[in-house]
């Protein structure tokens, strides 16, 4: 099946928290923006030794080499396009078979304005009212996908969903379970 027939779109972000550690979340949506699959990690807690020895590369290592590849590997549904809001995640592209895009509007919050110079070798592609930064050599492929993903309501908002879901998952740890019939599972 060609990848543009009913493409899925993945959203990946990592939440860093001083208390809990680094928690990654990958949300896979269908073309209408509905959740198909959600993968998240338990918080990763680097030791002091990691912090000293990895230095400034720790963030790159965690986002791009430890958490991201694991979540992509775990994801059971094929990913058509992977969107991220942290430039460190772009390196995942070397390990997977789908283009990885940085959503400018989402990344700008922490990174400031992103342009051709700040992300060398990248170019812009429009998706659902947002600008995606993709590697020049992937631009055509992403443009084709974006042309099919016209029903996606918002290309930036899903990151908020991941953060909400991570918060929920973390708050669940202390919550007792009950036997209520699950509406989602029943559907």
């Amino acid at each position: 099946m060609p990848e543009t027939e009913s493409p899925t779109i993945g959203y990946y972000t990592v939440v860093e928290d001083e208390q809990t550690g680094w928690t990654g979340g990958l949300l896979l949506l269908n073309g209408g923006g509905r959740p198909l699959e959600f993968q998240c990690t338990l918080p990763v807690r680097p030791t002091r030794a990691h912090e000293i020895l990895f230095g400034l590369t720790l963030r790159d290592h965690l986002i791009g080499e430890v958490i991201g590849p694991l979540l992509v590997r775990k994801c059971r549904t094929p990913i058509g396009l992977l969107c991220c809001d942290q430039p460190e995640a772009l390196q995942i592209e070397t390990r997977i078979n789908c283009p990885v895009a940085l959503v400018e509007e989402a990344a700008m919050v922490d990174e400031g304005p992103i342009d051709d110079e700040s992300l060398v070798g990248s170019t812009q592609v429009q998706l659902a009212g947002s600008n995606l930064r993709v590697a020049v050599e992937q631009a055509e492929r992403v443009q084709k996908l974006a042309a099919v993903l016209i029903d996606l309501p918002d290309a930036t908002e899903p990151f908020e969903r991941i953060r909400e879901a991570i918060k929920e998952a973390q708050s669940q740890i202390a919550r007792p379970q009950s036997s209520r019939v699950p509406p989602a599972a029943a559907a």
Partner: protein
Amino acid sequence: MWKRHSTTELRAEIDNQNSWSIEPLQPAGVHDLQFDPIQPKSLSIRVSKLHATATGFVFPEANQWTPPVTATEKARHSKRKSYTSLQRHRIRPPNEVVKLQDRLYYLLQPPLDSLVGSGQLNFPFDPFPYQLDGIAFLFPRYAAVLADEMGLGKTMQAISTIRLLLCSGEIRSVLLICPKPLVSNWLREFQVWAPEIPVAAIGGNATKREFQWKSPDVPVKVANYELLMRDKETVLNSGLHFDLVTLDEAQRIKNRNSTTSEIVRAIPRTRSWALTGTPVENSPDDLVGIFDYLSPGHLQIGMPMNQIAKASKDYILRRTKDMVMNDMPPKLYRDAELDLTPEQWATYESAESEGVIQLEELQQELTIQHVFELVLRLKQICNFDPSTGSSSKLERLVADMEEVSASGKKAIVFSQWVNSIEKMKPALERFGPLEYHGRVPHKRREGVIEQFKNDPDCSVILMSYGAGSVGLNLQFCEYVFLFDRWWNPAVEDQAINRAHRIGVKGAVTVTRMLAMNTIEQRIASILDEKREMFDLLFSETSPTAKPLKRGGLSRDEIFGLFDLRAPDGKKVA
């Protein structure tokens, strides 16, 4: 003359006593120091590889819970709306859903505002943001009270949520129960907000009704409360099951012992919703009645107010116009404090003094009914003098109507009595008065409303609280007159909100007529206390433990109106 010395005579000497000398830098000797040889030891710090553990959830794609978009709609929405809202209208799981996967299922759905903005979710009119919040509130809930103030669009919010749930396949059968006069209103609203959903009102003879009850082809059935009593057997004992039962004007079941309440509670169902603008009319116990239908045992009679507020918080969504409609024109209250005409006053004074004497003479036989009769008699005199027909309220109403009519506006006049309505009609003849009350047959009522809406010669409609206080949209009226006051402020509010609701263009002026120094003034002060109770129970902040006077005209309060002593109680002034 200077004497010169010869060079041989020059000699320099150091005075060792009075001068200093430096120790020589060159050490006098060499010392050897012996060190142990350094033998370095290697210490390896092993940095463990950073590992992450992942957990995953798969959500069924079948849950495409927006209605299918037609080709024309798609074309209409092909240009993306710039619907950038600062506040997301997200579906949040209620506290009763505890399993992580279920909670995430709701949390990971796209926010409703983005669906509306992208054209995936279509409404005939753009919903207000608070209405999206209402839909997001109802969608995941198995037990819920939507208690928005009258006029904020509870009907639209309920219908839109039902539409989403039906489209997603989460529910397949819905029973909607409402007061009889509102059935046609619900059908009309379904036509507007969910035209693709088949809806049927249960009606006709017994055979036809039984067929309708059991018909699987119509996912939404609308029945009225009275009919439910007649068809009790079919509804409860013929194997019917509803995925959702929604009660409109749910205050009808506040009395837990009423037959209506018992039947409603027994309907086999999965989800239970209640819609009411007045979840509490008289006392917090009214809410217990509604919760006995939603989630039996969750609230109990006599629970302290702060506990009730805390326990019900997750189940109730209540917004008032003040909270959500910043741009809505204001509601202006004007208390017309009137003195009775001399004729009225003479009749009133003798009726009160004679009445009180009679009540006192009854002594042990005195019942609350006797007191009520006197209250009603006096209130009627405050409206019209029975012998002469003189009325200070009517004089004021006619004067005010001149202005209303001259400015091309329309007004609603509410009274407790149809007799009072009939008495005021002749004096208002030039304003084209229409009547809407219990004596107007149901079949004609819709025509009356249509005429009032469209006929420029009809400037005023005379309504009874009972018939006109619920489910009517009269937002084109800018004036409301309360000819007499109802016992309960919640009913008064419902009446006022016929006019002060979404779509109203100008400020709504509410004139509350009050005969000074009469029973009406005494009742008004009790009504004010009730209003305070309601505000406290549904205030955002947690209610204080302050003991509150219970709502409703209690037995003691009714006796207290005439400074009487209840036969078996102490005197309440």
